[in-house]
């Protein structure tokens, strides 16, 4: 059970560069009146970032597209999306997603 100095240094530095992008926009922008177009633009950020993250998880390995490698995940995404649309339950969606993947891996 030890902490090495070089690792500690890396962790400290990494925590600072992680903290700043998290905190600065919230602190600064919440005190400013933003121009109208920025608000409209920011309004689409949640949908854009979630869609991008899903695509990356579903279709890529190390940033590169590998559809064949991911066909089970892509198939499992169908019942997952369906559950989300029909039940509007986040927990239900996660549970169905995990079960779908488990069943598909077992069957295929």
């Amino acid at each position, binding site marked *: 059970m030890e902490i090495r100095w070089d690792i500690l240094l890396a962790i400290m530095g*990494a925590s600072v560069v992680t903290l700043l992008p998290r905190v600065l*926009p919230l602190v600064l922008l919440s005190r400013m009146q933003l121009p109208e177009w920025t608000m409209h633009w920011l309004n689409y950020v949640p949908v854009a970032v*979630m869609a991008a993250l899903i695509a990356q998880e579903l279709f890529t390995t190390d940033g590169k597209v590998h559809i064949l490698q991911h066909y089970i995940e892509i198939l499992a995404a169908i019942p*997952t999306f369906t559950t989300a649309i029909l039940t509007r*339950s986040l927990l239900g969606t*996660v549970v169905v997603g995990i079960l779908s993947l488990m069943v598909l891996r077992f069957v295929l």
Partner: protein
Amino acid sequence: MSENVQLNQQEIEVKEDSLLQGIRDCIPTLLGYLSIGFAAGVVGKTSGLSVLEITLMSTLIYAGSAQFIMAGLIAAHGSAAAIILTVFIVNLRHLLLSAAMSPYFRHLSACKTMFVGALLTDETFGVAMNKAMNRSSLSEKWMHGLNITAYLNWIIATIAGAFFGKWITDPEKYGLDFALTAMFIGLLVLQMISRKIIRRDLIVAVCAVLIVLGAGSFVSGSVAVIAATIVAAAIGMVVEKWK
């Protein structure tokens, strides 16, 4: 009678904004980050980090993809400068998330907003933006409930991974690796359904998917996500103006 109704309304609002409600609203995301955190602990351990170092990492950095990459770089004996720069780029997308959340925290002091932002993640952002629908502000207490629950869950999960990782070698067998993807799918769908501008949101989502997949061949995955978010959100804005 109408006074009673008004009181009830107020009570509901207070309950909706409470710390406890924030904790409750975090529950659906716990499984996803539990499995990813566990995996991060396992990977950290196998790349030669001590349990204490892994705990410190989760407590101070608290970011999934960054911690995976850091473990990889440490295993490859990367320099501290290279590690810090990589983590910076990987976590730069938080700038966009933090900016998108800022309009909902105008009522807080700078110091209080800082604490809200310090524990910002993709998941808490997704949950908060769903909550923010049809509202002009978010409650600080509710946000703390959400944030702290997710934070503790992450720390516990990585420590567990570091301790027990050697016995559970294949979490993929149980489909747990899909929990995170499923959670993002749920967050996206809930968001789109409640926003009621489905056509425009679909355009934005499809653009984001195409851009992130296309850009992935040229830049790292984390830069691709940032590019996709910036451009796809701009497309949404332009389409909206056009109408």
